């Protein structure tokens, strides 16, 4: 069985700068995998290559064994690659019901329907409410997104991504900027994400990484530097030196 997501010698150059250096990476089915690395290690570039924001210079991205290297973001999304963003990418003027409703209807192929209102699709409503309930957005479901508390907006990030029913989900620093009071709620919903969704977590926050991930990959200077269980990685002296050590000194 092929891995949920795989890269083969994936490479990205910006002129002379090698941002991603022939990375071989495997995300297993149902994985809780974290990608860590010091600032400037190329984590964001790597995610952008996976999702199709940036075209790769060389190498391949395989989604469930299928080569998606040349597909657009939107095509990859339709094939089950979901993501959330480090900085909220939401629809400020829309409500959570509308945002999640849109994502569900797009997944079901009803997004081009220009005649019936979304409210007429009873099948969608049930699923929308389910997602809003899971992500604790029921109370604010009909408030404009721009007016939601930051923690709620982070939850909406997740709800919108999950509405696409992704097989693979990339979480880009999901807890970034969330105030302490709202953090618990976010971590709980992260832990409750469906176990058959394969998740790659890109994160700075080591507490979150160690509580969430069962496997860790360390990226340094765009290169696949180390990989293993959280225990292994923590013990790896090379990792401690370039990454964890650096944090301690910082």
């Amino acid at each position, binding site marked *: 069985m092929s891995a949920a997501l795989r890269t083969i010698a994936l490479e990205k150059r910006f002129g002379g700068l090698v941002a991603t250096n022939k990375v071989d990476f495997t995300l297993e089915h149902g994985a809780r995998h974290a990608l860590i690395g010091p600032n400037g290690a190329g984590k964001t570039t790597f995610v952008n290559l996976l999702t199709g924001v940036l075209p790769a210079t060389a190498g391949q991205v395989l989604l469930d064994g299928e080569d998606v290297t040349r597909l657009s973001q939107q095509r990859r999304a339709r094939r089950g690659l979901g993501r959330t963003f480090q900085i909220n990418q939401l629809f400020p003027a829309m409500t959570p019901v509308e945002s999640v409703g849109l*994502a569900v209807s797009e*997944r079901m192929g009803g997004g081009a329907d220009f005649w019936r209102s979304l409210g007429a699709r009873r099948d969608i409503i049930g699923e929308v409410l389910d997602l809003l309930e899971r992500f604790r957005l029921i109370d604010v479901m009909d408030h404009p997104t721009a007016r939601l508390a930051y923690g709620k907006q982070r939850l909406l990030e997740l709800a919108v991504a999950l509405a696409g029913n992704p097989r693979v989900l990339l979480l880009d620093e999901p807890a970034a900027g969330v105030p302490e009071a709202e953090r618990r709620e976010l971590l709980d919903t992260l832990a409750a994400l469906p176990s058959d969704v394969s998740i790659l977590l890109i994160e700075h926050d080591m507490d979150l990484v160690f509580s969430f991930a069962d496997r860790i990959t360390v990226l340094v200077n765009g290169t696949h530097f180390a990989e293993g269980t959280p225990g292994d990685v923590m013990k790896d002296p090379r990792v401690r030196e370039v990454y964890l050590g650096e944090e301690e000194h910082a």
Partner: protein
Amino acid sequence: MSTRTAFSPGTVPLRGAAPTDLQARALRDLGRTGRWRPAEALFWLAALASFFFLPDQHLLLTEVVILGLFALSLDLVLGYAGIVSLGHGAFFGLGAYVAGLVSIHLTGEPLTGLLLGGLAAGVLGFATAPLLLLRASDLTRLMVTLGIAMLLYEAANKAAWLTGGADGLQGVWIDPLFGRFEFDLFGTTAYGYALAVTFLLFLIARRIVTSPYGLSLRAIRDNALRANTIGVPVGRRLVAIYTLSALYAGIAGALLAQTTMFVSLDVLAFHRSADVLLVLVLGGVGYLYGGLIGAIVFKLLQDVFSTITPEYWMFWIGLVLVVIVLIGRDRINAAPLALWHRIRGGAK
């Protein structure tokens, strides 16, 4: 074991009173934009009343309604999809010329000319829409739309054998509507015709902007990047709305050609594109009525100011525009409501 099942529809127990309330609340929110408000009914009743009770104003009202439809077409792309344009007059002018030419060379039957005028503009919209997607910045879009309108203007100017060039299109003649209602000197048929067409197109537009497709447009306008990542084919959706908008503008142009029975280069002039943008900003973008209300306000202001200062009315329109944009529409719209609350608060 999979927890995925927990995410499938209907697993939040939808029994008892509370969940049904939730469903109702969600439905209410989704239907929010689609529900008819009393003010809307009032608006259209007033329009209907104007037909019966303002017979001396039919010529002016026809101009207003055509300008309103034209601005509505711009609202579809600007207000709902966030595409700016300085060349929407190209579609208006093309629709006008096609409707005029149809009456000369094909048939004087008004609905045929209207439809062909709209279709021609729609085709031009469809053909040029991809140019707006290549580099999706506002400045590029302004320049591309402006450029296309200029190209069309010069093409119509040069092709004098077809368009009459600077002299305008001679011999436009429109047969009675449905073979019964002649286009009279007082503009009564013209106004009824323009009003009915505009109302019908408004209804269709209203339905479209409240559909899932319309919702996806709002999502694109709000955040195209995220729309992309949830699988919205952004490019295709934008081409579709741009085409529809061009078709609407073409029909507005065709209405002008048919109701005035004259087409000149003026329909393709730059001021058409500028005026329609001004009208829409006056009335407010993104709620469909902005174009219609803006057209009324624009014509009223034009009327008032040109009576006071026949030569400088544009000065005053310009001043109003600057004030409205600087104060911000939200605050202007909120002012009566705030005043109402203050009065009620004071009464308590």
